[in-house]
């Protein structure tokens, strides 16, 4: 008889303990609901006709009408092509350059210089894309830019109207992207290179392996897990473009749209510049769903090949 109250008391104390913990969860979970989960269900507005008098999500169902409009335009193809092509090129080039730099950086004996180079290549990563837009503008401005005023005359070339000629932008945006993000990847890979056990290299040297062989047979295999995870993360986001890069850096210039319009800029313009919520939500839905399928699919493939390297 005497046991029961004590047991109840213990259970009650336990409940109280969890109550406090759940209470701590509350702000974060409430925030996730508002900021993430309601918008997730909100993507169904792509199948609705927006009518603010009926509430934000209260419009009439219109089936696939918004999608029909979207995919009838030639833009749907262009923005999909641009988004995927740019991201593919970015992922490939960033990978090769950052891994290469990380390995080279590790070969450097002078620690002070090593730290300096590391800082220098990481700095662009910390700058907002607005500032990146200014930096590019100071180089490419038609009237006052450094390239048109100093570089082009040096080679005896005419000034180029950079901000109205779409054909240059695939190259410009790729260079800017590498400049902006290679430092971050390089730091990650460098940390992984530093973590490789020195004994492997010692053994390879005794066996007479040169530098190149050491890189091919020790460094790269050791880096593979990190490379796979980092690349997987980027492939999972291949349907999401860096909005700032494609919007700020070309200065939102209309003539450049054929080579600078991507899914994110299209959704933004449709929603806030043209007020075409139907189009914007259809494109947004398309992006969210395909993006989700891609990340699940890439993870599945990696899991099949090597379960240790998968994300989840």
């Amino acid at each position, binding site marked *: 008889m005497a046991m029961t109250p004590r047991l109840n008391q213990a259970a009650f104390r336990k409940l109280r303990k969890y109550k406090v*913990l*759940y209470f*701590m*969860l509350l*702000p*974060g979970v409430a*925030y*996730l609901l508002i*900021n*993430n*989960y309601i918008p*997730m269900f*909100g*993507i169904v507005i792509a199948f609705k006709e927006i009518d*603010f008098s009926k509430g*934000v999500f209260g419009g009439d169902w219109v089936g696939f009408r918004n999608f029909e409009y979207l995919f009838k335009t030639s833009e749907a193809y262009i923005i999909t092509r641009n988004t995927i092509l740019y991201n593919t090129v970015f992922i490939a080039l960033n990978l090769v350059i950052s891994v290469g*730099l990380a390995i*080279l950086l590790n070969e*450097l004996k002078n620690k002070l*210089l090593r730290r*300096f*180079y*590391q*800082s220098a*290549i*990481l*700095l*662009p990563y*910390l700058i907002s*894309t*607005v*500032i990146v*837009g*200014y*930096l590019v*503008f*100071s*180089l490419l*401005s038609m*009237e*006052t*830019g*450094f390239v048109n005023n100093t570089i082009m005359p040096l080679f005896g070339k005419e000034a180029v109207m950079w901000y109205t000629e779409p054909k240059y932008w695939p190259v410009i945006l790729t260079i800017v992207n590498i400049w902006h993000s290679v430092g*971050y990847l390089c730091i990650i890979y460098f*940390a*992984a290179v530093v973590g490789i056990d020195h004994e492997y290299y010692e053994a390879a040297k005794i066996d007479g392996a040169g530098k190149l062989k050491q890189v091919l047979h020790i460094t790269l295999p050791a880096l593979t897990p*990190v490379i796979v*995870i980092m690349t997987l993360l980027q492939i*999972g986001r291949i349907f999401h473009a860096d909005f*700032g890069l494609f919007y*700020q850096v070309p200065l939102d210039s209309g003539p450049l749209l054929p080579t600078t319009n991507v899914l*994110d800029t299209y*959704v933004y313009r449709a929603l*806030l510049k043209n007020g075409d919520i139907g189009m*914007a*939500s259809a494109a*947004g839905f398309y992006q*969210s769903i395909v993006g*989700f399928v891609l*990340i699940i699919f890439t993870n599945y493939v990696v899991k099949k090949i090597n379960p240790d390297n998968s994300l989840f």
Partner: protein
Amino acid sequence: MRSNKVEQSIINVIFALISGFCLIPFLLLVSASFTDEMVIIREGYSFLPSQYSLESYKFIFEKSSDIFNAYGISFLVTTVGTIASLAIMTLLAYPLSKRDLPFRGFFSFLVFFTMLFNGGLVPTYLIYANVFNIDNTLLALIVPGLLVSAFYVILLRTFFTVSIPGAVLESAHIDGAGEFRIFFQMILPLSLPVIATVGLFQVINYWNDWFNGLIYVSDSKLYSIQVLLNTILLNVQYLLENVEYSTRVEGAAIPTQGVRIAIAVIGVLPILIAYPFFQRFFVKGLTVGAIKG
């Protein structure tokens, strides 16, 4: 030995070139901001202008109150946003680090899933602007960035689980300390390194954010420095229209091209100045983040 020296020199040259490639645009920006307006118009922005001038900065300090207002907004948003976001994230991460918490898996998944799938711009915008009506308020600059990546929560949770000895918490429980007391007096002080790292990331995220300003804010009094910079970059007219009338009557031309660049320099200055000091923590944070959580 000799080939080793040659090898080191080659690597040094490569990195010197790459470092130059990374830093030179900043150099151009700074020297352009100190260039005389007439020289800019005649020769363009250059590294070694034929005539230096402080005119652009003078103009900003004397005539433009906008930029100081924007600076104030940026500092306010960054401070409040970072503190609020650390509070929400640590409070969320701590219960998730408790192995015995019922439904822990469910809540962890709730956090993790946001990294895989999101509703995108349209529903998010409609929720904030049309349901909660926080557009054109300071909240629009703070709230959307509070939990910008579930990854930070996972980072914090992992640290709480791995790095804080269970025995310490056990004895605190036996001494009758409540969860809140344990959280504030033990967990937070013991986790300062990881909290500082996440805090640093959030400071940079808030300071650099222009997107929320672009989509939610049209009232120029609420422009943060990045939004102001963005407006001036995309629309030179803004500079001309927002200068006090008196200065235009005087007849002196506004050094538009120079001022534009000088404002960008002022906007990026805090990061450039603070960078050498936080660089090491930032690198550490990035590399910790790369490890599977």
